[in-house]
């Protein structure tokens, strides 16, 4: 066992932190959020130049990292910067599915993801799926030499700026079966694809996607028909390592702002940090953040373990980051008082992201139940 970062990852961490400190002021970020894409293509290109997208892919896939700890180191820093560029949608979610299922020809696109020149989005969740990864009601049926896809996809991250979509659709079985889910890679402007983009509460961009008789060639199919679920689950696992780690970064910012406020804000003639009521609440926040960090480390470190161990660590990390993220966000606001309620002060933007992360790829309840299921099977 070893709880220190390798030299390479320590350098990656420093580099991201420095870039964000120099180039990613909160005011500028909040302006960027208002743009059509909801992120800056110029900054995205610079992230690509720095090799940060490539850090999320293995050497076999043309990157130079791709392990759980590469994901966690990068996303913790992205969290501290409240970064809105599409690392999760394009590189982690879509990139993972493509890397696992794609043919050599299809995987050529990974080079463009890493270069930042093409953007992908994973259109998987549906209006009624409520985080359930196996829920796919969208259908794909044989149509001549290709497939015809019908259905709707919900809250697809960065779908409105994607060049390509990876769309999951059922080619056999019932709506909740793991078996029978297929993945298709198609240009986002394919006829019959209607994308309605919108901003989210935490400054990201997502979209509702309607698929109306979308005809794709057989070459759009990723991997075997009906066999996409394991790759989707693995992509979600990697994304949850990213989200749990991003949450730790966000918690650190909330923690530091609150500690600083407790030290400097005076009421009744003394710093408010002198009051036991606040000291004890802050101590709970500090203690719980270390739990969230440990759970994120466990998830990153167990990404290559067999399914049950991996998924238990993933659900544990996501459930803890959901519970603790809410605690940190709410307590940071409460201990600050009125100032935290303002747009300008900044804390609120971190708090919003921290709360909304619980709504991505499974919340506390979803992952607690999921952990219980795996744990019972393991016993």
């Amino acid at each position, binding site marked *: 066992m070893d709880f220190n970062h390798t030299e390479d990852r320590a350098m990656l961490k420093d580099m991201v932190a420095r870039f964000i400190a120099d180039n990613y002021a909160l005011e500028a970020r909040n302006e960027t959020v208002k743009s059509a894409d909801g992120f800056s293509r110029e900054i995205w290109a610079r992230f690509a130049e720095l090799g940060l997208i490539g850090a999320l892919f293995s050497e076999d896939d043309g990157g130079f990292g791709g392990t759980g700890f590469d994901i966690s180191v990068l996303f913790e820093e992205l969290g501290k910067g409240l970064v809105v560029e599409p690392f999760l949608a394009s590189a982690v979610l879509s990139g993972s599915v493509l890397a696992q299922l794609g043919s050599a020809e299809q995987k050529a696109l990974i080079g463009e993801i890493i270069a930042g020149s093409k953007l992908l989005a994973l259109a998987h969740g549906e209006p009624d799926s409520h985080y359930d990864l196996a829920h796919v009601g969208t259908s794909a049926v044989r149509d001549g030499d290709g497939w015809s896809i019908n259905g709707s996809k919900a809250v697809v991250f960065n779908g409105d700026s994607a060049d390509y979509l990876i769309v999951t659709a059922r080619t056999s079985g019932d709506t909740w079966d793991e078996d029978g889910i297929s993945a298709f890679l198609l240009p986002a402007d394919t006829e019959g694809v209607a994308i309605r983009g919108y901003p989210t509460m935490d400054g990201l961009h997502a979209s509702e996607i309607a698929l109306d008789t979308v005809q794709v060639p057989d070459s759009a199919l990723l991997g075997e028909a009906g066999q996409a679920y394991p790759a989707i689950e693995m992509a979600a696992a990697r994304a949850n390592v990213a989200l749990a780690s991003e949450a730790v970064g966000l918690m650190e910012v909330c923690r530091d702002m609150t500690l600083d406020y407790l030290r400097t804000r005076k009421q009744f003639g003394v710093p408010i940090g002198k009051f036991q009521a606040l000291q004890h609440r802050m101590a709970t926040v500090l203690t719980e953040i270390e739990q969230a960090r440990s759970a994120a480390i466990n998830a990153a470190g167990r990404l290559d373990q067999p399914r049950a161990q991996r998924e238990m660590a993933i659900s544990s990390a996501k459930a*803890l980051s959901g519970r603790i993220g809410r605690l940190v966000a709410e307590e940071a606001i409460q201990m600050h008082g009125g100032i935290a309620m303002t747009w300008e002060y900044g804390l609120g933007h971190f708090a919003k992201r921290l709360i909304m992360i619980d709504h991505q790829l499974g919340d506390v309840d979803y992952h607690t139940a999921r952990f219980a299921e795996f*744990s019972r099977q393991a016993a």
Partner: protein
Amino acid sequence: MDLNYTDEELTFRDEVRSFLDSELPASLSNKVKAGKRLTKEDMENWHAILNRRGWLAESWPVEYGGTGWNAVERQIFEDESCAAGAPRTVPFGLKMLAPVLMKYGSEEQKNHYLPRILDGTDWWCQGYSEPGAGSDLASLKMRAVRDGDHYVVNGQKTWTTLGQHANMIFCLVRTSTDGKPQEGISFILVDMDTPGVTVRPIILLEGTHEVNEVFFDDVRVPVTNLVGEENKGWTYAKYLLTHERTNIANVGANKVSLDHLKYIGRTQKKRGRPLIEDPLFAARLAQIEMELDAMATTNLRLLSSPDSVANAGPMSSMLKIKGTEIRQALNDLTRRALGPYAMPFVSEALDAGFNEEPIGPDYAAPVSQEYFNNRKITIYGGSNEIQRGIITKMMMGL
């Protein structure tokens, strides 16, 4: 970062397993697993077995007869010992006094006392709390007044765990009333056979005799039994409280309790199905398991960290809070898993040699007693509220 054990660590784990396999008497592990009370002889017996292997002082450096194990090795040893049903070692000499003597004791004290801790000659207990000095420990009043080559000690200590078995007690005493309360405290070692020392049992709410009151009436203690300098005892006391971090989160024991709770959850039935399939119970169990898994990593992060000394204060306080909260949550859910069978309480059923038919499931007898007994853990060792104050003050730098 790497969460996997190295080959060396796996080899060490096998070594520990085979030692426990051959040396831990079944009579002892059966008692531990069944939640029976351990006698003084049980504990002394286990200390002697560990000492013969050189593994009693797992947290001591080699030069004093310890193992010199690193953090991961100590955690492996603890996990395996708990899983095998080994008794916990008695911490007062090994983990509380010994580090203080190593850092602040005289050569004579180290040479005299440390070997006697290992070979079982001395059983130490702790004289910190007083009736008027609990969380505000520095307000302690027990006086030690210099008289020639002796201190004359008068006053009272309380909550003295296993003091009924001890022959020695380390005490914080007041040697000065000048300046701040912390500045007049000294750390002395007292032979409990000295005339004037009286031990009286305190029976806890669940009926056990675990702690005591110790009265000191003109007890004469040689000045050579002063540790370090007079009036510097507070520094040593704080060192003692923050030094021993290996076991503060009780990871190994918590893992065993979790497994036991899962076993109970599979055995207990609700509408003909195992309780563990009840969604509400399953969710409560999952919450504890997830917290424990994270805490095990927090614990190893602290212990393995090169700057662990700098982090010791807040991080060890965090682990104390989290470890005790998880333990109490386990005790609580275990109690609830039993349903009405949490209620029967036949005290004798917890003694070895009780041969009557159990009331209800055979695992039910100790559960509620352990639940009530472990209400102490968020109170002792600096209550969790005291720990919270420490954490925030250190992190704010106030």
